[in-house]
């Protein structure tokens, strides 16, 4: 995970996060919410080079509903060839709700694991206690589900080191470094480089950045030997004042950038091999 890795032509893993749990169609009508819509957009992204999809589920009103994650998984499997399914276990809902992401049939190959809480609005702190993180990590390990370690700020790196010391994770450790406002790490190139320099040996990192920071900081991630997550969960605008038309539009742009930087995108099979799935 370094500039040397970039120069050595290693392949870039592109994750698409099509829906998330934060925005609705009122913010962008092109955001896919229902299982078929999500699957259709994920299939288009797979065709353009995405090898992992990060999935959330909604109810018929567009509200968060973890009980429908099975339907979303089924629809994606039906529509896609080989893309790696990464279900969420994050967000602001209860543990019992979030754990549904690793209780589908079959199990997902990957799941997100939030490494600590973050703030929402004036009164909400997400329920990512160490107790809950440990329980999720243990169940993922038992089921051979690769955790994507979501670090919303640099203190969350300490939490990953804590899990490593407890022997709760298997190598390579797969980080998702998150940049944005609020409790997230402030989105600057300096902070990206600082976080990357603090990652443990035998790690791979993915980068997501919110809104207008998605394009520049994910590009920086490629240059630093990292991987990329794009999608409408993190960004509803293609450029200033122009809403995203589909997740494929964001994936296509990243694929083009990766190509211009003389790298290649990893296939799902190559991503599995790289991440030890």
């Amino acid at each position: 995970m370094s500039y040397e890795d970039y120069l050595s032509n290693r392949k870039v893993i592109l994750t698409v996060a099509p829906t998330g749990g934060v925005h609705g169609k009122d913010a962008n009508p092109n955001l896919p919410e229902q299982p078929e819509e999500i699957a259709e957009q994920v299939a288009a992204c797979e065709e353009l080079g995405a090898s992992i999809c990060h999935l959330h589920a909604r109810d018929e009103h567009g509200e968060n509903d973890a009980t429908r994650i099975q339907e979303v998984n089924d629809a994606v499997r039906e529509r896609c060839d080989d893309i790696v399914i990464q279900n969420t276990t994050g967000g602001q809902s209860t543990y019992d709700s979030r754990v549904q992401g690793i209780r589908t049939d079959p199990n997902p190959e990957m799941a997100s694991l939030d490494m600590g809480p973050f703030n929402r609005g004036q009164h909400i702190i997400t329920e990512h206690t160490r107790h809950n993180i440990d329980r999720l990590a243990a169940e993922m390990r038992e089921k051979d589900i690769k955790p994507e370690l979501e670090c919303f700020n640099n203190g969350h790196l300490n939490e990953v080191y804590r899990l490593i010391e407890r022997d709760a994770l298997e190598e390579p450790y797969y980080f998702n470094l998150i940049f944005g406002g609020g409790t997230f790490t402030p989105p600057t190139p300096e902070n990206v480089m600082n976080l990357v320099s603090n990652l443990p040996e035998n790690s791979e990192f993915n980068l997501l950045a919110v809104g207008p920071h998605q394009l520049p900081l994910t590009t920086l991630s490629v240059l630093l030997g990292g991987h990329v997550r794009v999608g409408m969960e993190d960004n509803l605008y293609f450029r200033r004042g122009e809403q995203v038309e589909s997740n494929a539009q964001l994936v296509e742009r990243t694929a083009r950038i990766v190509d211009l930087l003389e790298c290649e995108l990893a296939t799902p099979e190559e991503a599995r091999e790289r991440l030890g799935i």
Partner: protein
Amino acid sequence: MSCPYLEYRRSDDTHEFDHDRPYCALAEEFVSPMKADVCNDRDGFTHDEFCEIFQNAAPEADASEDAAREEVVSELGE
């Protein structure tokens, strides 16, 4: 118990949907999925404790209820 200002509707001045979506009658806008958890008092959230829009409106609602009550008392006194 969900927030008394939560509605489910298909449109407002700028949106038109083919399905019902959560709408805040106080803010006069559709609400995000995360906000809807609070409106619906789901996952340990309650609108009176976690929603700043409801909290900001609550004193006004209380004041108008008090005024109405005083009016009734006053009328009864006459």
